């Protein structure tokens, strides 16, 4: 601020005094003046404490739910794809809907870890680890559907360019093959990014286990309990130690690590944009009215980020309440996530309306029919679900009162994902059900196998996420400390702050 006043002439300075502009304090990213040790103890403590009862209950429910996917897939593999509700002319049903739904959810994780990193958004630090985990688990759930949609899943490796006995190769001119590359690259790079970000924290977990083993002071009512606690630390010493690769928190380590992190963020940004673009090519490259549009790539990417942030809030709000992370995931974080939902939700709403406009303006009778049919045809109920959840729900985030009501934000985050599922259903099914020839029109209904398989993926996702919060540090400790005032090497007293470099 000092530099500005030096450059001002007296008239300007007098004006500034008269106007007396409000001084806007930046909301801190870690509240209540916590210190470094508190952050380390808080985040590591979640993993090091005994397994809470609610975790076992949730795990049991999640496993039981995941069993539905197992049952659905077993049914499919032992009978054939005919057990799904697919029938001419609707040959893409819930499988592709669920695939796009889950892949879209993953996008917020990469957006938080990569795009917000490049944009230097300090608030991403406390949510990025969990969001990246969400990405990976969402990709796992998404991958199941196309994998089993191929019918004979034991030949799924033919999708990859691996020599086989028939001497044939994948068909690189098909968008579906592009998708294989996009999704498998996305999954792999997300795992690499997630793992690399976790290395310093794994080192911290290792060092803490070694510290406790050296101190040897284990509390416990019985000898058995003390031995058990000690045994667990021996496990931690080796388990986290192996994956930490000997990380020493050295300045030289951090230098190369930060560069690698920045580069991976730079690689993941075009990657995440390409993945949903290529997913939308599955539709856009066809010649079906309602699919064959150039608006699809940006519209899909915006929708993916929208649904992904919905899922991040669905997961993070309960975690924040359960683990008491209010000083790390503050109202500022929730505000920002809600605003991103508002922004991307508005883009999605704009795309819905623009599709209608272009259908009319393009003067193609098939295209106009496809859109009028979407909103008022046999699937009107799905269109209403989609439009109300995706277009109207996020508009409530304009209001601060709404953003501060955590229960309401949580309910809205679920509505967003319900709406986004219906969006994919509307896009996929309405265009196929009523195509060029009215004589071949049909009506699609899922079978019980479709329903089981999809329902179970929520269980599978929860199982993986529960394992994550139990065994991996929930937040990147080093990154959280980096955005704390004490982490600033140029003095951290609030009054002196304002120096920018």
């Amino acid at each position: 601020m000092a530099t500005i006043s030096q450059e001002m002439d007296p008239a300007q300075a007098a004006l500034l005094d008269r106007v007396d502009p409000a001084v806007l304090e930046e909301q801190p990213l870690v509240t209540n003046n916590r210190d470094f040790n508190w952050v380390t103890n808080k985040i590591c403590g979640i993993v090091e404490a005994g397994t809470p009862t609610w975790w076992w209950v949730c795990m049991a429910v999640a496993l039981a739910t995941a069993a539905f996917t197992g049952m659905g897939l077993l049914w499919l593999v032992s009978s054939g794809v005919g057990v799904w509700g697919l029938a001419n002319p609707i040959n893409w049903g819930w499988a592709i809907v669920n695939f796009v739904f889950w892949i879209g959810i993953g996008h917020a994780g990469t957006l938080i870890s990569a795009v917000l990193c490049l944009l230097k958004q300090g608030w991403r630090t406390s949510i990025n680890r969990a969001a990246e985990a969400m990405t990976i688990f969402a990709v796992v759930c998404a991958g199941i559907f196309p994998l089993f949609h191929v019918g004979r899943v034991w030949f799924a490796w033919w999708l990859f360019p691996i020599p086989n006995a028939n001497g044939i190769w994948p068909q690189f001119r098909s968008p579906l093959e592009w998708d294989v590359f996009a999704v498998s690259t996305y999954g792999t790079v997300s795992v690499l990014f997630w793992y690399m970000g976790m290395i310093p924290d794994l080192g911290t977990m290792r060092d803490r286990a070694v510290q406790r083993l050296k101190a040897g002071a284990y509390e416990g009512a019985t000898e058995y309990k003390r031995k058990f606690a000690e045994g667990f630390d021996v496990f931690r010493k080796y388990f986290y130690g192996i994956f930490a690769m000997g990380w020493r928190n050295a300045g030289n380590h951090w230098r190369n690590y930060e560069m690698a992190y920045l580069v991976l963020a730079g690689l993941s940004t075009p990657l995440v944009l390409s993945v949903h673009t290529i997913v939308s090519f599955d539709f856009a490259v066809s010649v079906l009215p309602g699919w064959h549009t150039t608006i699809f790539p940006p519209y899909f990417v915006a929708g993916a980020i929208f649904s992904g942030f919905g899922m991040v809030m669905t997961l993070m709000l309960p975690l924040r309440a359960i683990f008491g992370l209010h000083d790390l995931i503050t109202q500022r974080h929730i505000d920002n996530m809600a605003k991103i939902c508002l922004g991307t939700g508005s883009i999605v709403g704009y795309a819905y309306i623009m599709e209608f406009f272009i259908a009319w303006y393009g003067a193609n009778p098939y295209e106009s029919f496809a859109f009028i049919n979407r909103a008022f045809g046999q699937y009107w109920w799905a269109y209403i679900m989609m439009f109300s959840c995706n277009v109207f729900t996020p508009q409530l985030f304009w209001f601060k009162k709404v953003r501060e009501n955590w229960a309401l934000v949580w309910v809205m985050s679920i509505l967003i994902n319900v709406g986004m599922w219906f969006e994919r259903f509307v896009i996929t099914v309405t265009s196929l059900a009523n195509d060029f020839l009215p004589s071949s029109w049909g009506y699609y209904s899922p079978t019980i196998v479709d329903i089981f398989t999809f329902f179970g993926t929520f269980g599978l996702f929860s199982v993986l996420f529960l394992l994550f919060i139990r065994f991996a540090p929930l937040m990147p400790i080093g990154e959280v400390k980096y955005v704390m005032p004490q982490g600033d090497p140029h003095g951290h007293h609030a009054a002196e702050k304002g120096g920018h470099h």
Partner: protein
Amino acid sequence: MSNLHSIIASFPDTPSLYHAAEKVRDAGYKKWDTYSSFPVHGMPAAQGQPRSKVPVFTFLGGITGFTIGTLIVWYMGAYDYPLIVGGKPFFSPIFPFPIMYELTILLAAFGTLGGMFLTNLLPQHHNPLFESDTFLEVAGDRLLIAIESRDPKFDPASTRQFLAEIGGTDIEEVSA
């Protein structure tokens, strides 16, 4: 001296660690490092370290991925087993672009992670510093500088005194 690995000194807060690092750099030490549980902004410059070499590995990975992507599409679709599909060309730089693009990113990402490990000389599961109880506290809030005995300027007495002069506390020797 042969069984001495390094001398470590602690610093109370981030600014003092940062300024101490500048002094160690200016004193001409080469085999030393700072230790903190978070990356300190501007620390590489304070330590006199050059820009990280990780992007070189990223670039090599990316080039490899792009080349492989181009070659497999050409070899499989246009050379080894050309199939007529919808009148589309057997090879063109346009349609396989997603393949080339994704493989570029995939191998560049592997190159980056591998580059991080190579430049940091990891994995290295054993290091004498891990034996020090003080060093283990870096995981919490301790901020350290360690000057290693293999540094040509290292001398057990004068290095120890130097670390005390620049504000280091809890100075201790770590044996190899």
